[in-house]
Every structure is written in C-alpha cells, then in structure tokens.
C-alpha cells in the first residue's frame, strides 16, 4: 500500500485535501493529512518520518505563494527525500507554469480529477492524456435498446392500430420520383462497389445515372449534364480536404461527456453551417466539450428540388448540402462513439437522404410526416408516400428514427403534436423500425397563449414528459432544441435557459436531449464555435449541480398531464374516424390554420398512382 502525504500550505483552506484523503483511502492508499497552516519545514519533517511515495500540497491563497512553494522544494532537495518521493501541487493559487518553474513533479489545476492524481501517484502516463484514434473507451449506445414499446393505454393503442392500417392501405400502389430516385441511387451505390471489383461495366453505371437524372429538376440536371453549380455553391478544393487530415487525424485526449452521476441523457446538437469543413470543426469542438451526438441540417432548397447533387460542395448559406461525399467527409472526422443523425423528413429527397445517410454511416434518421408536411414543408400526400418508404428503409437498415414535435412551435397544442408523434411511432413499429418520440421542451406558444405557463416553465414541461410514461414504454428525447422560445441573443441568458431545460429533462430520466448553442436566437449569421462551448459548459455545470435528483410532479403538473393525455386520445379518435391520415393533415386535424399550421405545398401533385 502506497503512502501519500497530504498537506495544505495554507492558513485555512483544506477542503480539497480532506476530499482527496477520503477518495485516496477509498482507492486503497494510506493517506496521511496534515492540518491547515502547515509550514514547509513541518511537511519535510513529516515526510522524513513516514517516507511517503508522494507528497501532495495545496495552496489557495495567492499571498506569498511562490515564496512558500519554492521553500518547500528547496527543503525537499536538501533533505534528499526526492530520491523516493515525488511532489505534486494544486489549488486555486497554482498555475501549471508556476508549478513547473518551481520544480514540482506534478501540478494539478482546475477541476479535481482523481484519475490524474492516481496516475501521478502510480507514476504512469495520465490515462486522460493521449488516445490514439479509434481507441476511445466511450461506446456508441443504442437509445432504443432498453424499451419494449408496449402500450399501457389500450384505447390509444386501438386508435393507432386503426390509423396504421388505413395509412398502409392508402399508400399501396403509390410511388414518387423521390422513391424511384432512391431505388436508383441504391443501385448506383451497389454498382460502384461492383465496378471497383470489375464485375460491372461503366456503361451500366452510366445508364443508371441517366435514369436518375431524368427524374431530377432542371437545376439538378444541369449540374450532372453540364457541371453547372447552383448559385453560390462551389467545390471544396483538394488542398482544403487534404489539410483536414493534418488538423484532425491526430491523437488527442479522451473527451469526457457532460453527464455527472447518470449515464443518460445523451446530449445532441445540430450542425449545418453550409460548409463541411466548418461543420467538422464545430463537431470536433462539440465533441471535445462533451457532446454525444450531432444532427446534419441541410439547406432548405435541398428539400425543395427533385434530386441531390454529388461531390464535396460548400456554400455560404445555412444548411450543409447533402451529398454522399459531404456526408462521408463529415463522418470520417467524428469520434467513433459520436451518434450521427441525418434528417430527411422535410423534402422531396426524403427516401434518398436515408439511402445516402446509411451509406455514409448514419446512426439515426429523423422522420415525422405530419410535421414535415406542414408550414413551409412538403405536400402531405407526397410526404406520406415518401415517409412510409423511408420508415421501411429505417427498418431495413436497422437504424432508429427520431420524431421531432416542432410543429408545436407554430402554435399547435401539444396534444395534437403528440398524437402525430404517436402515429409516427405506430407506423414505424408496424414496419419493423424503432422510433424515438421527441416532445418539445419549450415555452409552448399554445400553452402560453392559454395561460398555462404564466407562473413557471417547469410544470407544463414536466407534464409533457410524464404523459409519455403513462402511454407507452418508449425512449424519450426532448428537443429540439430544448428551451425553444426562451432564448435571447444574450449568451448568458441563452446558455442558462438551455441548461435549465436540459437538466429539467434529465431529472425526468429521459434518454437524450437536443441542446442549442448560445447563438440560438441570433439570426444574422451562422452559429459561432464559442456559442457551442457556452451551452456545453453550462449544461455540464447544471448537471453537476443537479446530480441524481429526480423531479416529481406537482398537483398542477399532474392535472396538466391528465388533460394532455385525454386530448391526445380525443385527437386520435377523430383521426381514426376520419379514416385517412393524409386528409386529416390537409384538414388540420393534427394542427389547423387556426392553430398556426397549414399544409405544405412543395411537391404537390407529384404522387404517381
């Protein structure tokens, strides 16, 4: 058993010493501590007496710090104890530079990390220092694995079964250009592999591409036929791509997640600066500061044109262009454990996006037909056909899909949004896929208008999470991002609201949380890297503050939960009775014009019967 001598070279502050003593004792060391106000002479005298393997001294006050610490080192040298003892220093008054200059063997600044202390005692390279690429000890979790998807509410389950049968019957014998392109793209990808192995000719590949181009909009056709790039889009240069390897294909310290005592929730953020290189940098920074997963956001025009581009492309607008090459480039630089979601539920390329996402290594998809076919989104009939095909792809690839409930932001009551999420869950389950509903944790416009959040922002959000536990055994992932409608451009306020909402979700035992940056409410330019770090730091500290404390529902929250549950049931009953989910969306049964929602128009009249 190694002996460690702990000494506070400080008149009053010895809390860290006491804490370290307890943790070292628990770890099997003999930890001997001295009282506050110990002098350097007394430390050396004690060291000569007990011959410790390591001496750890601390100093909190800045007054005379260099003088006292250098005196300790000089005395240790003179006494000859450094032949068998190593000396480390830590505390608020210490900097790494000062520790090294004064001749200490180890210097510990900032947050106490016991693994670093123990590595120092054992005289080994710090386990948290360097990891070779691919050696990460963090594993990529399956969010859906612990859940059975058993419905606890048989009435709701019954309505959902009716709706699912109606939808699957309705989509039979319907297809779209989006689905046909997805099928061709799938063949092209297979063909590429066969071509590399010499099993198919370039003619076959060219024929497939011709068929693909024939189903595209003119602007996409011009790209393939005459190499004409859309306005504002440029190729990434080879030198730019090559330099990425020098920057990020290097060993680095193991990154630690945001979680404190619990392994969940996992934390996600979105990227989509418009440029894959900037995206990669943002992702790497988010990973370094603790993120567990990221979303790919594409530009809105990507969703509004038939057909996708190819190659490594960049532009100076929101959203990063979806191409297989862009996706693969971004994925290449992610940590092995980082979960990656490629969304595709809003556009005319929904099925093909899933094909490309799968080919590039996506871990999650994002599909919500009712939400994606409203507002500025896709025509409901078109997205119903494309969305069901995409759910089949999710099942085929074994990739879980999340279902964002962001239509609530338009003013839709949460119960209608939740009814939509439940329908999407039931459809996916029927087709063999694994859903993850995403109730929105926000300053809900509908609930605000109706005075349900006048007093606080906690009870309504707790009710919106708790209601799921009464309906079905499912993972829950509040999004998207949490704290929507509460953020302002002030970075402190914005980071605070994100962290409050994130930890509120955490107290409810949710599985994942999507967080914003502190630039969430800034609309004049892209999100900055420092804004990402702001919220990651805020959430980490809030989780530390919260620990494993769990929330319980107040009477008001219980009442709100029951109201939401009842109205979800009523909404599903109306949709089931209508007998046609597509018509229900057109007619506003899951969100009406009065609520602030209207059917999407992109791709209207494009379903092929």
């Amino acid at each position: 058993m190694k002996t460690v001598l702990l000494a506070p070279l400080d008149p009053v502050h010895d809390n860290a010493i006491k804490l370290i003593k307890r943790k070292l004792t628990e770890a099997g060391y003999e930890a001997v501590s001295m009282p506050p106000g110990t002098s350097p002479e007394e430390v050396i005298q004690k060291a000569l007496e007990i011959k410790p393997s390591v001496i750890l001294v601390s100093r909190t006050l800045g007054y005379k710090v260099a003088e006292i610490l250098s005196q300790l080192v000089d005395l240790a040298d003179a006494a000859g104890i450094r032949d068998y003892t190593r000396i480390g220093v830590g505390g608020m008054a210490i900097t790494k530079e000062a520790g090294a200059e004064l001749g200490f063997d180890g210097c510990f600044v900032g947050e106490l990390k016991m693994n670093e202390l123990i590595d120092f005692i054992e005289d080994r390279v710090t386990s948290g220092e360097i990891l070779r690429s691919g050696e990460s000890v963090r594993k990529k979790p399956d969010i859906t694995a612990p859940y059975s998807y058993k419905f606890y509410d048989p009435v709701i389950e019954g309505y959902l079964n009716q709706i699912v049968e109606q939808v699957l019957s309705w989509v039979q014998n319907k297809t779209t250009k989006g689905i046909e392109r997805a099928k061709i793209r799938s063949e092209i990808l297979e063909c590429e592999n066969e071509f590399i192995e010499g099993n198919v000719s370039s003619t076959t590949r060219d024929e497939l591409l011709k068929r693909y181009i024939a189903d595209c909009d003119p602007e996409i056709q011009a790209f393939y036929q005459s190499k004409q790039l859309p306005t504002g889009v440029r190729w990434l240069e080879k030198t730019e791509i090559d330099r990425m390897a020098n920057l990020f294909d290097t060993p680095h310290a193991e990154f630690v997640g945001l979680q404190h005592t619990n392994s969940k929730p996992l934390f996600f953020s979105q990227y989509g600066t418009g440029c894959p290189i900037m995206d990669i940098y943002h992702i790497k920074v988010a990973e370094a500061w603790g993120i567990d997963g990221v979303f790919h956001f594409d530009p809105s025009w990507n969703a509004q044109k038939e057909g996708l581009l190819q190659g490594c492309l960049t532009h100076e607008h929101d959203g990063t262009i979806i191409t297989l090459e862009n996706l693969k480039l971004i994925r290449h630089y992610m940590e092995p454990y980082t979960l990656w979601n490629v969304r595709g539920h809003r556009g005319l390329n929904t099925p093909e996006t899933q094909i490309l996402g799968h080919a590039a290594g996506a871990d999650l998809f994002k599909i919500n037909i009712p939400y994606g076919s409203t507002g500025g989104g896709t025509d409901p009939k078109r997205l119903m056909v494309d969305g069901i095909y995409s759910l089949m792809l999710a099942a085929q690839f074994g990739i879980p899909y999340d279902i964002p409930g962001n239509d609530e932001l338009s003013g839709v009551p949460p119960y209608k949004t939740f009814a939509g999420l439940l329908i999407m869950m039931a459809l996916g389950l029927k087709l063999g896929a694994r859903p993850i509903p995403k109730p929105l944790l926000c300053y809900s416009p509908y609930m605000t208008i109706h005075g349900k959040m006048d007093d606080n922002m906690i009870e309504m959000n707790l009710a919106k999470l708790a209601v799921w536990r009464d309906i079905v055994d499912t993972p829950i992932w509040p999004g998207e991002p949490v704290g929507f409608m509460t953020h302002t451009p002030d970075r402190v306020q914005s980071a605070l609201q994100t962290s409050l909402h994130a930890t509120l979700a955490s107290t409810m035992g949710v599985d994942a949380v999507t967080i914003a940056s502190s630039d969430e409410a800034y609309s004049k330019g892209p999100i900055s890297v420092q804004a990402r770090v702001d919220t990651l730091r805020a959430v980490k500290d809030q989780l530390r503050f919260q620990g494993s404390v769990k929330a319980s529902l107040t009477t008001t929250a219980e009442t709100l939960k029951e109201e939401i549950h009842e109205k979800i049931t009523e909404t599903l009953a109306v949709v089931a009775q209508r007998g046609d989910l597509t018509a229900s969306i057109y007619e506003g049964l899951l969100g009406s014009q009065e609520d602030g929602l209207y059917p999407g128009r992109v791709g209207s009249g494009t379903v092929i019967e």
Partner: protein
Amino acid sequence: MTKAIDHIVDAIDIETFLFCKSEDEAKQLAESLCIELGLPHGDIVFLEFKAWGARVRLRSYIHHPGDHYRWMESAGEA
C-alpha cells in the same frame, strides 16, 4: 466628439475561440490578439484548451478605479 472607447465604463471583454494545438499556443495567440487589436494591457480572464482549440475571454481595462474617467468628462461637457 468623444471616441466610443472613452465610453467604456471599465473594461472591454473579447469572447472568442482560437484554433491552436496547445494551451501554451492558445495563451500566446490570446496575448498577441490583444496587441493586434490595439487593446492596452490585455489579460486572459478565462482560457480552456481542448484538442483543437481554445475558448478564451480576453480583457483590457480602459478605465481603472481611481482613473480620471473619460466617460464622465464627456457627460460633463453635455
């Protein structure tokens, strides 16, 4: 006409993120940035380096307590 910098009550902070390969490099860059921006006596309030870069908060005091505050002079002129 008074300069905008004279209206800074005490300090100006710069919040940014620097691409760098070590904490030492981050500190050097942060100090250089203050000089390049013409900020007198720049100080690093906060710096956290991880792998690909550093989150930093730089500060320069324009008016220290006990100075003759230029923002007060301009108020007097009005």
